């Protein structure tokens, strides 16, 4: 029993930090966008962890194969045992090119959820996550997911564009037009993809308007 006071003190310290990070406004202000306990405690490292989670989704898509594994087919040099070591590396980690298919594609989704929980400004995670929800047949979750992204990042045109495209796919023309018009208003030439996004906004917006005009049907 002699070690218990130290352990209790340690546990008390950890609980205090957790509670303080949630309750004290000064600490919470360190990451105002996110009130998640995990984010508050981990601080800036959450962005790195979010990026790792996002990349893990890609590793999962390729059934556990990373870029490094694929590049591992070089000819062994003249150094002794190099061929054997390389073979051992190649065999212990999967290396062939393979994609998850069918129901297995759903295994990517938790990684996107983890990534956006750790970093709500991770646009690629919001966008790709929404796409994969849709692709795996859960369009309701896809809509919810990208809408959460819009709530966290209301000034980013890319999320409106993706939600507009999603509504277009779901034939919700009115919502599609509304989101694509917002995307058009918020569009900024801030990245390499921005000009392509602008073209996408125009194409989808025109198409959605075409579908909307003739029937004048209201969405339920």
């Amino acid at each position, binding site marked *: 029993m002699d070690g218990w006071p130290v352990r209790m003190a340690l546990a008390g310290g950890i609980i205090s930090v957790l509670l303080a990070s949630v309750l004290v406004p000064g600490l919470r202000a360190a990451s105002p966008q996110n009130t998640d306990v995990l984010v508050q405690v981990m601080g800036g490292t959450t962005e790195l962890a979010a990026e790792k989670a996002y990349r893990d989704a890609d590793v999962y898509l390729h059934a*556990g194969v990373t870029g490094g594994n694929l590049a591992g087919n070089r000819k062994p040099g003249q150094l002794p045992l190099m061929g054997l070591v390389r073979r051992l590396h190649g065999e212990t*980690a999967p290396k062939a090119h393979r994609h998850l298919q069918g129901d297995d594609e*759903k295994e990517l989704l*938790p990684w996107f959820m983890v990534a956006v929980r750790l970093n709500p400004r991770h646009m690629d995670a919001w966008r790709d996550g929404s796409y994969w929800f849709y692709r795996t047949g859960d369009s309701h979750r896809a809509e919810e997911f990208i809408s959460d992204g819009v709530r966290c990042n209301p000034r980013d045109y890319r999320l409106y564009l993706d939600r507009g495209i999603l509504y277009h796919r779901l034939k919700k023309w009115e919502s599609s037009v509304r989101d694509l018009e917002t995307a058009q208003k918020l569009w900024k030439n801030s990245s390499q993809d921005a000009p392509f996004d602008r073209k996408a906004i125009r194409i989808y917006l025109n198409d959605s308007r075409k579908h909307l005009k003739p029937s004048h049907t209201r969405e339920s």
Partner: protein
Amino acid sequence: MGSLAIARLSILETMRRKEFYVILVLIVGLVAWMQFLGVGASGAGRFAKDIVMQVIWLASFGLAAPLAARQITSDLEQKTAYVLMSRSVHRWQYVFGRAMGAAAAAVACFASLFFVLVVMLLVKGVHSLADAGLWQAFALQVVALVMLCAIAVFFSTCATSAGAVTFSLLLLILMRYGGPAALSRIEAMVNQGFLREAAWAVYLAMPHFEFFNITQRVVHGWGPLPLGLFVQVLAYGAGYSVFAIALAALLFRRRWL
């Protein structure tokens, strides 16, 4: 016989400590959380299996290194080592017994944690219990734990227990996660004659924990390792452990007590 009695003593000491039980409760909690919360994955359970396996692997390493590192140092601090060696136990028997005891205790802890994973897979209804890769991963992790314990015991004969834990965990992390990158780096060192050979010699001398990590193979259903290769890796781990313990015994024999 002396080594076996010392090993038994190490296991009993470990079971009296509370770290293992705390980790066991945390892992059961993690499994329950993943089971009940549902994280949007498919029935294949790759995500849950991956996370739980990685956590169990790391937790078992985290338990094993301090366990092995404090075997000899705490005996010396509490003067138990003198009592044991006064009873006609050779120093090499003592070192071997302590290393084997630490390894056996670490493997017992790991087996209990692995049991949680097995239960989780059974509850999930995943048919991966029939996957030979899962049991290969288990065997490889057992040998990796023995290797880590041997290395920690080796360091504990010439450093404090804190130093031994630090050095052994550093080697583990460096090789398990940086091993393939280091190999690519050495391969890229063309036209650097002697430097390349020296780097290669250092690389070969390192404990290659990365060979024992087949988690991605198991999680993504790539099938078990070819039998010949599996045996080679096991033999490598066993050989490296024996070498590290022999070196530790040699250092301890020359140590002035």
